[in-house]
């Protein structure tokens, strides 16, 4: 840790890890309900566990993004943060928002609008937190006068995320119109500006971990961002299938979402190329695992599995089945969970005391068990979804009867989700078992810091 104020990142990561653990509790509960009968039918029905599962994901991933940004910006701009106090105020406000939202969901206090269930007061707090965050980061960069491309991409991604949240605050009388604008937030986040954030973190990590040339990495970062937006913005159309909008969105959605993997292929080549040409053997090999893993898992989950059901004539049959759950789990995990875990793994040796820079064997177990578990979960959703499409959509078997026929895949889902959960538990344990390094600590800095500041 070169700048003392970077230590705020620890507390962001600590909150993120706690909520990640909680997210999995509700995920496993939801999965168990697929087997049924449900003893909690009138205490915690599926709609409640599911809404908490997805909302915790969004909250903790954003917490991770914020923590990682507070870690990265001082490094890139070579300065202390504008205000650590503001960063802590923001974290407290943000965590309170997240926790009260979850408690509210237990009592069905929410908007019932998929993924945007946060009640209006909570949405307003989200906006306030975003503003504090952007202000703090902008002031830090302004103060230093050093503004790198990587940072610029990250900042633009964060700023656009805040702007794209605004349509979610409005009310629409027509259900179809409300669907239309809901995707401006959700789709343009996950397949647009969040990809920018992810690409910026990835560029940062690759430059630091592999010693790749900044000039080259940042040039390709532009290309990747360009590809993401060319495909992603008009690719929004794949959410406009079958919802009551004009038909021209069908071919547009098919064509542009078929282009979406291009950016992800570029990102994988980019990551692989960087380690091949690596001029620097950074000791934190575990962080490199997470970084390269993120690029490859994104290509698999977001790219290939998205492509698998994005063409209108295919989607006509798969729309609204477990095929979507297959794609959703693998894509979100690869692109956003893994990049946050990569940033945490990279920063943790500096943020905590006595942690070996190269990572522990526990850390590697966490990595491989998560990868294995999530891959298995993806296959379970895929096989269940394929079965559902054929039985229910093509053969015309009733929904409830078809679900009974695919029970075995739900057993597989729970088995592989358990492996995944153990991997996550190990990661969380590995994170918390070393005490944080406080600002007052006057320890000698690690040698690698020198290598970092050269980059």
């Amino acid at each position: 840790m070169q700048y003392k104020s970077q230590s705020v990142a620890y507390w962001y990561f600590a909150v993120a890890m706690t909520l990640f653990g909680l997210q999995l509790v509700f995920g496993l509960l939801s999965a168990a309900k697929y087997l049924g009968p449900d003893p909690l039918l009138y205490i915690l029905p599926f709609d409640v566990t599911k809404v908490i599962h997805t909302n915790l994901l969004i909250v903790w991933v954003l917490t991770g993004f914020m923590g990682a940004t507070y870690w990265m910006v001082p490094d890139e701009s070579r300065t202390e943060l504008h205000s650590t106090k503001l960063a802590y105020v923001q974290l407290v406000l943000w965590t309170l928002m997240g926790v009260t939202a979850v408690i509210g969901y237990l009592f069905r206090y929410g908007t019932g609008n998929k993924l945007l269930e946060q009640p209006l007061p909570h949405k307003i707090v989200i906006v306030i937190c975003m503003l504090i965050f952007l202000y703090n980061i902008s002031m830090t960069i302004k103060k230093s006068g050093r503004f790198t491309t990587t940072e610029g991409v990250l900042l633009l991604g964060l700023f656009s995320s805040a702007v794209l949240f605004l349509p979610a605050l409005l009310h629409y009388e027509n259900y179809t119109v409300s669907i239309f604008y809901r995707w401006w937030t959700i789709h343009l986040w996950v397949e647009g500006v969040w990809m920018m954030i992810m690409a910026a973190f990835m560029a940062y990590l690759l430059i630091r971990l592999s010693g790749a040339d900044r000039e080259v990495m940042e040039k390709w970062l532009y290309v990747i961002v360009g590809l993401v937006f060319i495909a992603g913005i008009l690719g929004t159309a794949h959410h406009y299938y079958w919802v009551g909008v004009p038909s021209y969105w069908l071919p547009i959605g098919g064509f542009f979402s078929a282009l979406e993997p291009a950016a992800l292929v570029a990102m994988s080549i980019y990551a692989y190329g960087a380690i091949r040409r690596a001029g620097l053997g950074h000791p934190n090999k575990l962080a490199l695992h997470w970084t390269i893993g993120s690029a490859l898992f994104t290509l698999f989950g977001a790219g290939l599995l998205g492509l698998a059901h994005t063409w209108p004539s295919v989607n006509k049959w798969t729309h609204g089945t477990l095929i979507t759950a297959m794609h959703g789990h693998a894509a979100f995990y690869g692109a956003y969970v893994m990049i946050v875990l990569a940033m945490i793994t990279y920063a943790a040796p500096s943020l905590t005391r006595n942690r070996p820079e190269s990572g522990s064997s526990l850390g590697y177990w966490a990595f491989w068990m998560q990868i294995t578990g999530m891959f298995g979960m993806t296959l379970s959703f895929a096989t269940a979804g394929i079965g559902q499409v054929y039985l229910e959509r093509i053969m015309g078997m009733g929904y409830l009867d078809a679900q009974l026929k695919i029970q075995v895949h739900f057993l597989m889902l729970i088995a592989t989700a358990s492996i995944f959960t153990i991997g996550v538990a190990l990661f969380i344990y590995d994170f918390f078992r070393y005490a944080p390094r406080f600002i007052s600590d006057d320890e000698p800095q690690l040698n690698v810091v020198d290598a970092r500041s050269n980059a």
Partner: protein
Amino acid sequence: MNNRQARMFAIAGTGLSVLIFLGLTLHSHSKFDELTNAENITPQVTHGKDVWHKYNCINCHTLFGEGAYYAPDLTKITQHRGAAYLQAYMRDPSKFYDENKHRRLMPKQNLSEEEITDLIAFLDWVSKVDNQGWPPRPILVTGGFIPGSDSVGAVASGEGTAAAAIRPVTAADDPRAQGEHVFRTATPACNACHSTAPGANMAGPTLAGIATRAAELVGSALYKGNATDVEGYIRESIIAPSNHLVAGDMYSANGASFMPIGYEETLTAEQLDNLVAYLATFK
């Protein structure tokens, strides 16, 4: 490509995409009202939408295929189930489905009668939105077209009665074959609620063995209708389903059958004859 060119590519590509996207958005706005029959969004429908949100329906069900995947899609539900059925269902789902059999059950939501009525109005509005004919085949809640899945019709898709999936018939065909065609293509389709497989009761009772049951019933003390023979009983069941009620809370309430009425108007006399002839074959 140098750094500056790469930046230009990103900025120009993004800018162009944003422009096209905004242009199409503007154009879509000029079409929304027509595609969604916005003139039919009454205060009742709007309230129904609020009910849909208030009870978090979308985190189990899907609507337009969007939502969670734990419960059936409801896009076309009002075309598969009559209002009376849906009303009775939402008062207490456990009267219709057995959690031990299907391993899932919708928890009772304690909706007010007004909430139920308005929710149905909202779902009915949804079912009429022009959404490119999705789903391509009806998504059933339970039961199924099996056996007979080879000829599942594209009934709810608006693709018309000549969909390729339905075995075509001509006037030269046997009346019972023509009747089978009516069974799958009438609006609402008979097979959306009735199977012809023994024991496979869907929203309506199975029609397997209907001729045998009718023969026993007509003339017995249990029979409440006006028919005097099997064909007459089947015809009466189609055009006046409440004349004689089949026992069961899931089929009727307050002396009225949940089966939709109006087939007398929507079917021609010949189609009705053919349908009766077809159903009378289920001994």
